[in-house]
Each structure stands twice: as C-alpha cells, then as structure tokens.
C-alpha cells in the first residue's frame, strides 16, 4: 500500500474500498489492466502518428483533472493528442508487471529510484536518452541521477515531487510558543513538553503500513548516513547489523509519544489530528498532508527537517519521492511519445499541472515560484538545500521486499519493540532469500 505515498491525493474511504474490491477481483483475474487497455480501444490506436497512448494511475478527480489540463496544453503545443487509460492508483501499481508484459500504453506514470531501475533491469522499458538530449538543461544533476538506470541510460522523466519532513500546525505552535527543534534531544524534549500540555506529541498512524517507513528512512540516514541507507536498500545486506539495531532502539524512544492506537489509524486520521490541533507534529510527506491542509488552512501548515541525530551526517539527506513518466519497451508511436515526454519535461507543462495543487512541487527548473504557497516554497528550499535525496523505502528497495517483508515487520516492531533482535534476524534471512532468488 506504500504505493499511496506518491498519490496521496485525498484517498477517501470510498476509493480505498473500491481499490480493495478491485484488488479482490484481481485475485481471480490478474490481467485486468491488460484487458482494459486492449479492449476499450483506448490506447490501441497506434497507427495514428498524432496520438500517443498514456497509462495513468490517477483516476481520482483531483490529479485527473490536472492531467487533462496539461494534456490539452500538450496538444496545442506539440499537436499530439493523448489517449489516456485511467486506472485507479493502487490497482495500477499492483498490476504493473502484468501490464507491462501485456498490451501497455506508450507512456505511463511511474516513480524514480530502484522502483524504476527494477523494471528497467527486467527489460520492460525503452531508454529515453533522446528525450533527455532535449530536456537535459531543465534539470539539476541530482534529478538526472535519479532518472538513470543502472546501465547509465535514462529511463525516466521527472515531473513532480515532494519532501518528507516533520509537519505541524502553525497556529497551534504559535499559541503554545513551540519552536522547531534541530537535534534529537530538542525533538524529544519538545515531545515531552507537548505531552505535558495535553497534546498527542507525535501523530503517528500506521494502519496502512507504509507511513512508518518514512521514519525508518530518516532515522537511518541521520544515524548511519545516506550511503549506508542506500546500500542497505539496494543490496539487502546488513539488516542484522548493530547499525540497523541502533536505528530501531532510537525509534523506541518515540513510541510513547505516538497517537494512541496508531496501528488502527490511517494517515488521514493522523493528519486530521494535526489539523484539529490535537497533535503536535507528524512525520509525513507534503503530498499527503497537503491534501488535508487545503483552502484557508493551506498557509497554516508548517514543517521542519527531521532532526539531527549523528552530527557528522547532520540534516544532509532529504527524502523526496519523485513522480514522473516512463516509456514502454515497444511503444506504438515512439516519435510521438518522445515529443510528449519532451513537453512534459518542461517547467511550463509542470506549472500547468500544478495549477492550484499545494501538495507537490515541480521538478524542472524555471517554474514561476511566486505562485507557490508557503509550504511549497519551504519544500523547495528544503530539497534544494539537500546534499543527498532519497526516494522512499518502497522506491529505494526491491518491490518484492518492501511491502511483503518490511511493511509487516515494522508493524511487528511497533507492536512489540522488545522483540527487535528476532525481527531483524528474520528480515535478514528473508532479504537473503529474496535477493538470492529471481522472484
């Protein structure tokens, strides 16, 4: 379910229900997606050189409308019309393997990091080096690095991204006189103070399983450094090490400050605790909490970077998941797809997409930042000041490891922190057999 990290666009109960119902149907018939794409005629019209088919994971109204606007703009700018197959966010991710091997659209929504490299490595994607020769100057080197596969070729065009940080309600903090902590000791002292003030110090909610991964990522990067974290994610080696054990021991200190019953609460309920001034702070992504602080509340959303634990790593690394596009192995309209991707890789297109969306920021340089809300401006500063950028656990490590292994194991730790030694040795064993096998 970590998939939602990217598209937290107001995941309502109803859409969750629909997703799960679809997931249930998928048990009986996995190639649902493929069936949709080939059956509807949508996306199949390859001979037309003016049309590019697009597989979208944004079927919910808010991002769907933004995409429709940007595709309309793409048509007037490039003459290419985009034929979209809209699919529910989680269903899209769940079926991606079947989808890419079936009859996929030319271009589709995806994520940077290992999550992109995994599918590039399986030979299911086209390189987009030709797109990058046109859009290269629009992006920073950090963005370029995040768009390449392990073979050095480009496979990904970044579109929007957002930071993970510690969020709070500004008006609550003003009335209580809290100030943003920068070190671990200040952070825990503040949590203690909030508790004595009758607040839930840290809104932490993990019924969905994936939100807790953000806290792990940050603690690991702050305590062991970015390089250690990425090696752990990519190689799966070293889970049963004293360094990782130390991360979980540090994490234990926070559990007493978490929302009561956090394993039964969704991130939306946690973000509501911040909005309603019941809770003091929350480790989450702007893409998620930005959809709760909307309208007049938007300016009330403040955040600070996850505090320093080991001074030698400071607050260098920022977790900023990047969403974007990829091209399938054999697109029906390759030239059109390249043109579309070139357009989507410009500040202009991203600005149109962002519109009034306060939960993401553009990846290309040259966006008119005066249109950003305060949280967006702060987010941009945070990311630009970062020495390293990580994606998220479910984007930085193998997809068959993140959700099936880490998600339930972190929940077990949160249930019973004392059993961490056994949990880590088990994670280590499972990691070894998953990395050793090919599936």
């Amino acid at each position, binding site marked *: *379910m970590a*998939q939602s990290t990217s598209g937290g666009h107001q995941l309502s*109960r109803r859409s*969750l*229900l629909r997703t*799960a*119902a679809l*997931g*249930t149907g*998928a*048990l009986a018939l*996995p190639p649902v997606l493929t069936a949709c794409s080939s059956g509807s005629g949508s996306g199949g019209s390859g001979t037309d050189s003016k049309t590019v088919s697009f597989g979208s994971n944004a079927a919910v109204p808010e991002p769907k409308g933004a995409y429709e606007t940007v595709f309309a703009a793409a048509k007037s700018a490039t003459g290419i019309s985009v034929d979209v197959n809209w699919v529910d966010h989680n269903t899209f*991710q*769940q*079926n*991606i*393997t*079947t989808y890419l*091997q079936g009859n996929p659209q030319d271009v589709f929504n995806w994520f940077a990091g290992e*999550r992109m490299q*995994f599918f590039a490595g*399986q*030979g*299911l994607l086209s390189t987009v080096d030709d797109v990058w020769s046109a859009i290269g100057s629009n992006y920073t080197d950090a963005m370029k690095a995040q768009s390449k596969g392990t073979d050095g070729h480009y496979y990904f065009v970044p579109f929007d991204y957002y930071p993970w940080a510690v969020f709070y309600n500004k008006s609550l903090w003003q009335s209580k006189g809290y100030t943003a902590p920068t070190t671990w000791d200040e952070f825990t002292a503040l949590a203690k103070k909030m508790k004595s003030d009758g607040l*839930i110090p840290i809104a932490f909610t993990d*019924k*969905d*399983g994936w939100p807790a991964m953000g806290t792990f990522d940050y603690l690991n990067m702050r305590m062991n450094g970015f390089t250690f974290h990425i090696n752990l994610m990519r190689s799966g080696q070293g889970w049963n090490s004293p360094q990782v054990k130390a991360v979980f021991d540090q994490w234990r200190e926070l559990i007493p400050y978490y929302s*009561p*019953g*956090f*394993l*039964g*609460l969704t991130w939306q*309920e946690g973000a509501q605790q911040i909005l309603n001034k019941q809770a003091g702070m929350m480790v989450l992504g702007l893409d998620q909490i930005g959809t709760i602080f909307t309208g007049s509340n938007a300016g009330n959303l403040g955040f600070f970077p996850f505090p320093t634990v080991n001074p030698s790593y400071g607050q260098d690394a920022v977790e900023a998941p990047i969403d974007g596009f990829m091209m399938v192995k054999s697109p029906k309209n390759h030239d059109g797809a390249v043109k579309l991707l070139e357009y989507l890789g410009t500040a202009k297109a991203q600005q149109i997409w962002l519109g009034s969306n306060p939960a993401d920021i553009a990846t290309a340089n040259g966006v008119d930042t005066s249109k950003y809300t305060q949280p967006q401006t702060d987010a941009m500063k945070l990311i630009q000041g970062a020495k390293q950028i990580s994606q998220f656990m479910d984007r930085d490590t*193998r*997809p*068959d490891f993140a*959700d*099936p292994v880490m*998600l*339930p*194991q972190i*929940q*077990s730790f949160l*249930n019973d922190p004392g059993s961490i030694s056994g*949990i880590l040795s*088990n994670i280590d*064993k*499972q990691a070894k*057999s*998953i990395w050793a*096998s*090919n*599936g």
Partner: protein
Amino acid sequence: MTTVQDARSAPPSARTGTGRGRRRSRRLTSHDRITLTLMGGVPTLLTVGLVWLPALLSVALSFSSWPGIGGVSSIHWVGLENYRNIFTEYPQFPPAIEHNLLWLAVFFLLPAPFGLFLAVQLDKQIRFSRLYQSVLFLPVVLSLALIGFMTELIFSPTQGLINNLTGDTHQGNMIDWLGDPHLNIWAVLVMACWRQTGYVMILYLAGLKSVDPSLKEAAALDGANGWQAFQHVVWPALRSINVVVLVITVIESLRAFDIVYIINRGTDGLELLSVLVTDNIIGEASRIGFGSALATILLVISLAFIVPYLITIFRKDERE
C-alpha cells in the same frame, strides 16, 4: 465441487439406463446422448480446465523461483526451497494458519448452532416470521468487502460506533479494536459470524420446510415434547443439510479474504493464508514460486477437509 459431482453422476445414469432394461436404452436417442455428453462433458471440461489444471500448475510452480517476468524459460527450479522458507523464516505464516483455524473453529461453534436455533424458531410460524427471516438473511446479501467496510465504521478506535458509544475515544482509555493484533481478529470474526449465521439459518430453514409435518404430528401424538421431537424426528431428517452446512463452513473459513483485506490488507494480526497468497503473487513484483507454495499449502488444507467428506458421500452412495 458441485460441478464435479454433476459431471460424475451424469454418465452412470446413462449407463444404468442401458443396463436395466431395453425399453429405456431404446429411449436414449442420439439426441439424448448428445445432451448427456454435453451436460456431463462441458462441466467436466470447465472444472478440469479452470480449476484443476491451474491448481496442478500452481503445485508445479511452487517448486520454482519466478518473478512472472519473461517467458517460461526464466523459471528456475529450486526444489523445496520455497516450502523451507515458508516454514522457517516467513513470520506471517504461523499467524495466518492460526487465524484460518480460529476462523474455522469459531464458525463451527457459533454461527452453525445459532443459525440452526434461529431456523427452528422461525419454523414455528411465529408472528412476523418473514420479517425476522429477511432481517437475519440481509447480511448474506452484502459482499464481504462491504462488511469489512462496516467493521471499520463500527470498530474504528477514534471514529467508530462502539468507542464513541462507550466514550473510549480519548488517549489513555481507548480500546484499539482495529490496531491491537490480539483484538482485531475478534472484531472481524464478530462481523463474519453475523453474516454466516444468516447463511446457515436460511439453509436449515429450507431443510426444516422439507421435513414432513405429519412426522412431527405423529411424534406429538406419541407424547414427545419439543426437544424430543427435534432430537428424534427433525434432526435425523436434517442430515443432508448438516453436510451442506459443514462444507459451507469449511469453505467460508478457508476462503476468508475480503473483510480483512479491506481493513488493513491482512497485516498486523489479521493475517490469513489467502492474503499471503495474494501479497506474493499479485503485486508490483511477484514471487510466483513462493506464492504458489503458499497456495499449495492452502489446497492441501482444503483437501484434508474435502477428501474425507467425498469418501463418506461415495460410500453412502454405494451402500444405497
């Protein structure tokens, strides 16, 4: 299962037709033969092609390692490796087995007898019998996914009905119905039983309607009280329904899935075998071999219940 029986029972009836008397065999025109072949053949083909063939392929795949990407050539055969991993290092497996068995035990102990009790009461022609019947049967019409959603509405720790009625929504005194791994399975079982009771009730009610009222009258004339009449007249007549209820109970508890998947995708105390199969096979990146091994284990457990049942049924048929 019913298709298997259909498929098997069709040809024997044709055979006995030819064996017992010439008249009957003469009546079996070529048209009849085609009809019988179609009636027996089509379900057999469907069952073999859609159920048994994939099941056997899953068993074969359970000895392999395959991400589901690329052709059959990318399958590696790894012997019992997947099973070894499941039994030694897959922490969700023991709780999943435990929960499936708990589900089975609870379904036998609560909805089955209670459904029978309700059916017997409704069969007594009390006033508004139809109304009660509809109300009790209503949950059966709802999908389990919807019941999962209702479970959330009722048991959610902060926004749910129960905690708000008892006032336990605040810090400190909150009952964590959905997050506490020792509690949430019971919350789910309460809801699952609510549905299952109606199902069992309607089955027994149908069975009770078919009990000849004259038998009950005769028992009453012989001086049997209500309990004795039930014990000696009604209960034996319900034998065939009991078998159906038994099978339904086993099937429903082994295939339980939707309700927990809606709540938290079957993690944190709500693990079930069906969920583990789904997690490993349907997903962004699949471990087809590992998931197939889990599915095979589920198949073996189902067979452990179904084979003895089939054996007794066939034995009975032979005796009769």
